């Protein structure tokens, strides 16, 4: 069985895997369903390009509801738009139909993992999902992002999520993710994305295709008191909401 997930993420935001350089900051706020987010930079050097890791986790309540939308706020002066990541667009339809090979190498912006809960009869099964982040086409002048999610066991599925990167925030819409016939939809409970990392792009130089590595997201020269703030708002299908916030501590001077 193949499921099509389409996640729209703005180009600037990616949920990233925790970095080895420093444990990500984590904070939790509670609504009907508790949620937490985490963020981290690697390397942690002001004024330098870095890889941004972002993630969230949702602890469903007694009557869990699927995630419908998410807004992630990040420091507006973070160099997401100027990162040079995603210098070619990937078409969502091609991504859904043919997978990641349908997207130009220059459209890849990052990768990550996710976990979903799949109701199977009386029990709930957790499935791990691999994520790949691409730049999407921009119909409105803003940077758009596509998240391609692939799960294999117990349910084989491919889903594309789409989002838009607005100044200081990433807005993502999560469509209903069907599971098995007559069964409730899949519930997304955890996501970790890395924006940047070891990516290889290509440019034409004197008629030849030359590989290069995009530098990543630029950190500002200065760090706000209390660190770089991140916050997220989660909206669920049943109308409930959850809030979470965190801050990435200011890098220590070297």
């Amino acid at each position: 069985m193949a499921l099509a997930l389409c996640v729209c993420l703005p180009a600037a935001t990616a949920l990233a895997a925790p970095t080895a350089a420093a444990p990500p900051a984590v904070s939790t706020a509670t609504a009907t369903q508790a949620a937490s987010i985490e963020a981290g930079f690697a390397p942690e050097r002001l004024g330098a390009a870095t890889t941004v890791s972002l993630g969230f986790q949702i602890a469903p309540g007694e009557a869990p509801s699927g995630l419908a939308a998410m807004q992630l706020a990040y420091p507006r002066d973070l160099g997401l738009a100027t990162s040079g990541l995603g210098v070619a667009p990937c078409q969502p339809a091609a991504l859904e139909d043919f997978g990641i090979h349908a997207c130009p190498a220059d459209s890849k912006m990052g990768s990550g993992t996710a976990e979903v809960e799949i109701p199977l009869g009386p029990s709930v099964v957790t499935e791990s999902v691999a994520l790949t982040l691409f730049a999407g086409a921009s119909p409105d002048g803003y940077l758009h992002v596509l998240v391609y999610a692939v799960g294999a066991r117990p349910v084989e599925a491919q889903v594309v999520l789409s989002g838009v990167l607005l100044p200081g925030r990433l807005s993502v819409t999560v469509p209903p993710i069907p599971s098995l016939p007559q069964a409730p939809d899949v519930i997304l409970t955890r996501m970790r994305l890395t924006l940047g990392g070891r990516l290889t792009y290509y440019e034409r130089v004197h008629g030849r295709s030359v590989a290069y590595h995009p530098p990543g997201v630029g950190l500002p020269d200065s760090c706000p008191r209390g660190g770089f703030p991140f916050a997220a708002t989660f909206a669920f299908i049943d109308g409930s909401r959850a809030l979470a916030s965190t801050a990435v501590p200011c890098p220590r001077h070297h």
Partner: protein
Amino acid sequence: MHDVVSRWRFRVLSLFGCCLLLAAGANAASVLNVHDEGRLHYVHASGSVIVDEGSVSGSFPGSVRVRFLYDGEPQVSASFTITGHGGSISARGTGRLSSPTSATPSFRGHMTITGGTGRYAHIRGSGELSGVYNRRSYALAVQASGKLPY
């Protein structure tokens, strides 16, 4: 970001000579048709701000330093100062970025002279600002033009 920057080549075309032309005619009650350009190279980046420098070629040769802001909003902004023979001219401009996912999105907008020094201490005026932003190299290909009263 210096280590990263060192790998990048920044070639920026900027058209700011219009401002200088404006200054040159500051004492005359007339209108100056301006169209000028220059080249800049990357100097520094701080988050969503990119700083480029270079030389201006065109109506008024000199050096220019540009602070370019792109934070994801389609409307980008730039402030710059041109230093030429006899003084400097500062301006600020905004433009809408199109095709932001491409490697070299273009922008077009408006610029306003914000001040000057030396011979251009009283310069005023405005015009059109357009160009191309190279997301790979941080290069800006910028043009400035307009009918500027002086």
